[in-house]
């Protein structure tokens, strides 16, 4: 049977504040274990939390960027559960009055725009990290706790069950990530855990309005695993339903290596979090004037930037989408254009050579060895006819590895394009003289033969002959 897939995502993102949510400890990732800790984040007896105002500001920013309503009065609550990475055995989070509610985000999948509604955004503290003695939890006889992450501020962004496919889920997650990056409030590094995602998935026959029984999938630690995990879970549920079975409401975990989801706990084993209002913190009152101030100072967001790239620089919808999907790429584009780079050429190079090199080295554009200015200079050499586009790729390779400027490389390697017609004519005539068969073929109407002759000319000039001139001069002489 063909089912409708219903997905809701819970996205957790660590905020890049300097200090933790309730104390002054550093949030720096990768510090030596248990060095970014104090009595407050260690949950020692008698200590009290104090809210980091920056966290509230960042949460309001995210709420506004995701078209939410900011609640003027919200509060923290305690979510009670026992786990050794949680020193107080409760997580300070927000329950019934989160900072932001009723938002939405428009995504594009297969050329169509779709609106995903956002239920709520709330602030909470992250837990610590368990370091197990063995390779897996079950093979470990002990565990150590690293509390550096304890109290790092998190936002949880909860969507409505409006997502209908793994592709939509991925597009939504990518867009949320882009927005958080544009806002400059999170590093959004899935591999470091600063962006995490849980998916609630259920199926129902087309036309049915009530929701089917859902499973919550945890441990989706990359964009790829979000897509694969959802695809796997959909097939698993389809098979159960097709066999006349019933999906059990449970929490499942995605196993990236095996490519399957496995049961973690069922409804009976589900936690009763016994929420209660956090008595150690006062309610968060956000002045509407402050909200408007933050709104007025929001940076340009992906949609607006895409529109600008299309309107001001004549990029296609497709090109503008790709370039603005990452703030860093879009920044690179803007900097190149500011250096008088021709927009379309910059876009092509970004999506072509630059992206190809970044991918093969597994780095982001922030680590790109060729600066926007250097790329622009390279493009200028093509524009002026100093080098051909083909040679430019060779020059780019060299720039990437040596970090030298294009002009220097062109000069050192003698790659300047030959645009002197007398020089080209001499070579053209030489090639015609030494390839009578090809000349004869061409004259007999075999158009392909000219390609061979051009190739010979390029070979002799090591690719430096101006291709347009070669074409014109060759045809004139045949």
């Amino acid at each position, binding site marked *: 049977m063909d089912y409708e897939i219903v997905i809701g995502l819970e996205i957790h993102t660590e905020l890049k504040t300097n200090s933790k949510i309730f104390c002054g400890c550093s949030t720096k990732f990768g510090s030596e274990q248990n060095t970014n800790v104090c*009595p407050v984040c*260690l*949950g*020692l*007896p*008698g*200590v*009290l*939390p*104090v*809210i980091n105002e920056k966290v509230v500001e960042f949460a309001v920013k995210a709420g506004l960027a995701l078209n939410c309503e900011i609640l003027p009065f919200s509060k923290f609550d*305690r979510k*009670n559960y*026992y786990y*050794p990475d949680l*020193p*107080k*055995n*409760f997580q300070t989070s927000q329950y019934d009055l989160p900072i932001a509610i009723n938002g939405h985000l428009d995504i594009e999948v297969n050329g169509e725009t779709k609106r995903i509604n956002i239920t709520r955004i709330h602030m909470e503290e992250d837990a610590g990290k368990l370091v197990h003695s063995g390779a897996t939890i079950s093979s470990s006889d002990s565990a150590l*706790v690293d*509390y550096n992450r304890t109290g790092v501020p998190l936002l949880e962004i909860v969507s409505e069950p409006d997502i209908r496919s793994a592709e939509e889920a991925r597009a939504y997650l990518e867009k949320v990530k882009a927005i958080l990056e544009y806002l400059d409030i999170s590093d959004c590094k899935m591999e470091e855990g600063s962006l995490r995602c849980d998916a609630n998935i259920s199926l129902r026959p087309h036309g049915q309005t009530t929701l089917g029984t859902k499973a919550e999938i945890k441990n989706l630690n990359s964009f790829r695993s979000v897509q694969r995990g959802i695809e796997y879970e959909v097939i698993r549920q389809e098979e159960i339903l097709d066999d006349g079975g019933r999906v059990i409401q449970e929490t499942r975990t995605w196993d990236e290596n095996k490519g399957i989801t496995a049961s973690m706990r069922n409804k009976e084993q589900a936690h*009763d979090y*016994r*929420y*209660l209002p956090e*008595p*150690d*913190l*006062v309610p968060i009152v956000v002045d509407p004037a402050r909200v408007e101030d933050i709104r007025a100072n929001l940076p340009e967001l992906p949609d607006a930037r895409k529109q600008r790239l299309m309107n001001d620089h004549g990029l296609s919808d497709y090109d503008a989408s790709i370039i603005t999907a990452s703030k860093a790429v879009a920044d690179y584009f803007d900097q190149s254009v500011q250096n008088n780079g021709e927009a379309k050429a910059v876009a092509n190079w970004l999506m072509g050579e630059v992206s190809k090199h970044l991918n093969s080295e597994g780095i982001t554009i922030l680590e790109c060895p060729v600066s926007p200015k250097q790329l622009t200079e390279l493009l200028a050499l093509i524009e002026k006819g100093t080098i051909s586009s083909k040679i430019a790729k060779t020059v780019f390779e060299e720039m990437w590895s040596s970090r030298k400027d294009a002009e220097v490389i062109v000069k050192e390697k003698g790659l300047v394009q030959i645009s002197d017609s007398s020089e080209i004519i001499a070579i053209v005539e030489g090639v015609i003289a030494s390839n009578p068969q090809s000349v004869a073929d061409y004259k007999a109407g075999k158009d392909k033969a000219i390609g061979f002759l051009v190739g010979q000319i390029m070979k002799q000039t090591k690719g430096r002959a101006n291709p347009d001139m070669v074409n014109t001069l060759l045809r004139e002489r045949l």
Partner: protein
Amino acid sequence: MELFKYTASQLHEKLVTKEVSAVEITKAVLGRVDAVDKDVQAYITRTSESALAQAKTVDEKIERGEKISVLAGIPGALKDNICTKGIKTTCASKILATFVPPYDATVAEKLAAEDAVILGKANMDEFAMGGSTENSGFFPTRNPWNLETVPGGSSGGSAAAVAAGEAIWALGSDTGGSIRQPAAYCGVVGLKPTYGRVSRYGLVAYASSLDQIGPITRDVTDSAHVMNIISGHDAKDSTSINAGVPDYTKSLVNNIKGLKIGLPKEYFVAGMDAEVERAINKAIEQLVALGAEYKEISMPHTEYALSAYYMIAPAEASSNLARYDGVSFGHRVEGNDIIDMYKKTRSEAFGAEVKRRIMLGTYALSSGYYDAYYLKALKVRTLVKQDFDKAFEQVDVLITPTAPTTAFKIGEKANDPLAMYLQDVCTIPVNLSGVPAISLPCGFAGGMPIGMQIIGKTLGEETIIRAAYTFEQNNDYHKGFATLGEVK
């Protein structure tokens, strides 16, 4: 000269006139502790050495002609749920028997800044849960007026120490009456400030929305002096009130002409000792004779306050005490796995009353029961608060007994939690509404002190201090001294 019998303000006079030295005062009180603490058992931890060093510092300052604060060189005790850097802070619980905080509570810092001398950490009911100090995980404290009776609780060690001359002043904490009720039982003065007036940073939480630190002293004057030091906004406590602190000693005025006193009839409950009731009525007559106006009023939701308290406080406690799990600090009993370790650690190291309240609170917050219990209790709390708001539209202060009876025998109520809870019936509504109240001696019954509670409006400490001071100045109840040392 028995220096341990004086109040802080009297000893301060002796210090600045160089009649005695701070070291002499500290030695006198330490000597008293040596003599009587085997009977009273007020202290869990003693810090005699550092106390003498602190006293010596004060003497040097006096020698150099420096100005010293009223508590400088005056020895006192801290309830053992107030964190002290480098000094064991146990909450009278086996689970924290070896816990040494790496930080000071804000009140401890403030006292240190004034050169107050700390003699040690006072016994209490485990995690401040109880009204007799019999729930201490280590040993019970005895009432210096009669060693067969309890000192009250949970700040029983603090109150007994002050009453027995084992400390000149002390700090307690009050969640449902834990400063005022032991002060009443021990014949001393106990003040629970407005919620948020004194920082809770470093006070080990029992029920965070109700807990408040306050002074236990020999007279109202010392209460005002201690309040001057410990009050004020603290950036480390988000619930502390950001308002200026008045000089409370300016309220030590023997004049209550025109003060409107309310007597809430609901506080005179069944089971109240007739002598207690008589003493309160007599006190009211006296205050009226001194120029106060008196009026009986009604606070209709009083009878529900106790029940609401025993939902809200345990609910918060169940969450606050979850951190005592044996993982990173405190007592640990090894288990087969983490759950087993949690269970063994908490089963072994928590006392019966703490377990009872954790279970009560866990139940009240559980899915399916939350609305019926916890949420309902919060609504009752609002109604109780409104009772106070309405009362204070008509009167300036409310006067009630602090507790329905005088101190009871050790063991008498130990197996009857409900009877024990009823001892807090007059003090609990005050915590639910957050207002301040002071308990001071107003008579004796069978040789045991009776306490009178004066309740003020939010941040109305000055008014209750003035009313209490006026009553005290016109009576001698505070001048009697528990005679255990001599009797023994």
